[in-house]
């Protein structure tokens, strides 16, 4: 296995007061893969994710992007390194249109005087680019100009996923992207995650929904007590064995490698 690593972490330690959230965990993410992260509450999933997205600065350990050592002090550092994070709370402005949400914070301006001096937006180009992009991702909406609040929960999440995928150069981290969605809507988002990977991005998927993780993940990172206890292949390991590893009932050494 010589797949290229886009994001790697070694021996990450993080204490909050006298609580050890991360106890020397490792992490690796290959190019164009979906890595599922599972773990019980308190296993250190969210602290790990926050470390990788720059929201938490680790006490010890090293992080590498494309083999280069990085030091993230803020989410904007991770973003600059090509890592986008989709947070559980939907990062969309419901009253704004789909186009406006897709380009929020990175709007395109017109060229020349209109753009440079009057700072006028290039609405036509933003509309064309987002229409093409949403089609590519297979998110069907009636009109790109409709307000996000008029969409269903799944479509809204679709816009949020599309937004982060559009601006990520390497990695999209998704924290519970299918939570609070119905079955059909959840599947829509899972399809979308596959398409994001097929475009060449790597996806980190944190979810409590075991069937969802097993359905889309290429590999599964099992977190337990602040460490990574196993990296599983969902095609060779059953869901119940994965849960057993997660809860400590099964020693990962007993599983097929």
């Amino acid at each position, binding site marked *: 296995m010589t797949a290229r690593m886009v994001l790697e972490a070694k021996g990450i330690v993080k204490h909050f007061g006298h609580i050890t959230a991360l106890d020397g965990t490792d992490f690796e993410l290959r190019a164009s893969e979906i890595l599922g992260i599972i773990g019980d509450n308190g296993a250190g999933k969210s602290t790990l994710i926050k470390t990788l997205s720059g929201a938490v600065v680790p006490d010890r350990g090293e992080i590498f992007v494309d083999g280069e050592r990085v030091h993230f002090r803020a989410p904007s550092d991770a973003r600059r390194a090509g890592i986008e994070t989709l947070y559980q709370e939907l990062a969309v402005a419901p009253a704004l249109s789909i186009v406006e949400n897709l380009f929020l*914070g990175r709007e395109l301006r017109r060229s020349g005087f209109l753009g440079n001096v*009057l*700072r006028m937006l290039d609405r036509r180009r933003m509309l064309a680019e987002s229409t093409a992009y949403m089609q590519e991702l297979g998110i069907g909406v009636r009109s790109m100009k409709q307000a996000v609040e008029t969409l269903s929960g799944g479509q809204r999440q679709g816009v949020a996923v599309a937004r982060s995928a559009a601006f990520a150069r390497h990695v999209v981290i998704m924290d519970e992207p299918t939570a609070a969605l119905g079955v059909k809507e959840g599947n829509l988002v899972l399809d979308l995650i596959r398409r994001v990977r097929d475009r060449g991005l790597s996806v980190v998927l944190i979810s409590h929904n075991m069937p969802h993780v097993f359905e889309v993940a290429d590999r599964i990172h099992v977190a337990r007590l602040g460490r990574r206890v196993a990296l599983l292949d969902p095609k060779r390991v059953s869901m119940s064995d994965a849960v057993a590893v997660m809860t400590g009932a099964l020693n990962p050494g007993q599983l097929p490698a």
Partner: protein
Amino acid sequence: MRARLLGTLGPLLALIAACLFFATRSDRFLTADNLSIVLQQVMVVGVIAIGQTLVILTAGVDLSCGSVMALGGIVMTKLAVEHQLPVPLAIAAGVAATTSFGAINGLLVTRLRLPPFIVTLGTLNIAFAITQLYSNAQTITDVPAGLTTLGNAFQVGGSSVVYGALLMLALYAVAAFALSQTAAGRHVYAVGNNPEGARLTGIATQRVLLGVYMLAGVCYGLAALLSVARTGVGDPNAGQAENLEAITAVVVGGTSLFGGRGLVLSSLVGALIVGVFRNGLTLMGVSSVYQMLVTGVLVILAVATDQFSRRVAERGEK
């Protein structure tokens, strides 16, 4: 979509209906002279309402707008009259004073994270007190002609239009362009709509908020200039009615007090609705107490419409 359209067009239809109603009640209402008077009466509140719209779009509110405007008017007139400062410098100083108050509001809201309602309730009183102290509670008269130029009128087709009204319309055009056609304008909406989401997408929400309060201060300064031009004096008690009238105009126009929804041009419509009702009822000989009654009903109607359309939107109408 229909609810949103109602929110935008409703006030405009109400304005047209009000005009038609008053036209049937008074022969004088639809005359060019009278309409120019309405415009002249509306221009001060209209310009304050631009700043107020910006603040309300961020889910804030600025109770201090009228008091800050009064301070700006006193600074301008006092510097020009008592210190013989050239008019442009006096105006600049007045606008600088109101912008500073905007900055104070903005800093208290962003740095200390205090609710805008409380912050501006405080600065309302502070600005009022400073205005009284600085002017010794005296009206400043013998204002140089340069400060009242905007109150002069020019003739168009036999009726007179005040320059100040043109300034108001120009400011609305600039604000409408900036809010709808620039990234900064869209960020104002995003911050009002979902502050946490806006922050996560990388928008500098604190800078947006501070900028909004400061620009509102600039609007109050320009409104002060219009107020001085209209009345011909620096009045330390100006702006007390405008504190709430500007909010009324914005709300009647249909901009949501919950932030993130509305148009600045709607606030012009809102200001005109209030102005037309005042003017029309006066022409009909109705006492000013009833005018207040009507204004109150309009505000409640407008907020009720806003709530209704929000609820429809949240239900995710198809």
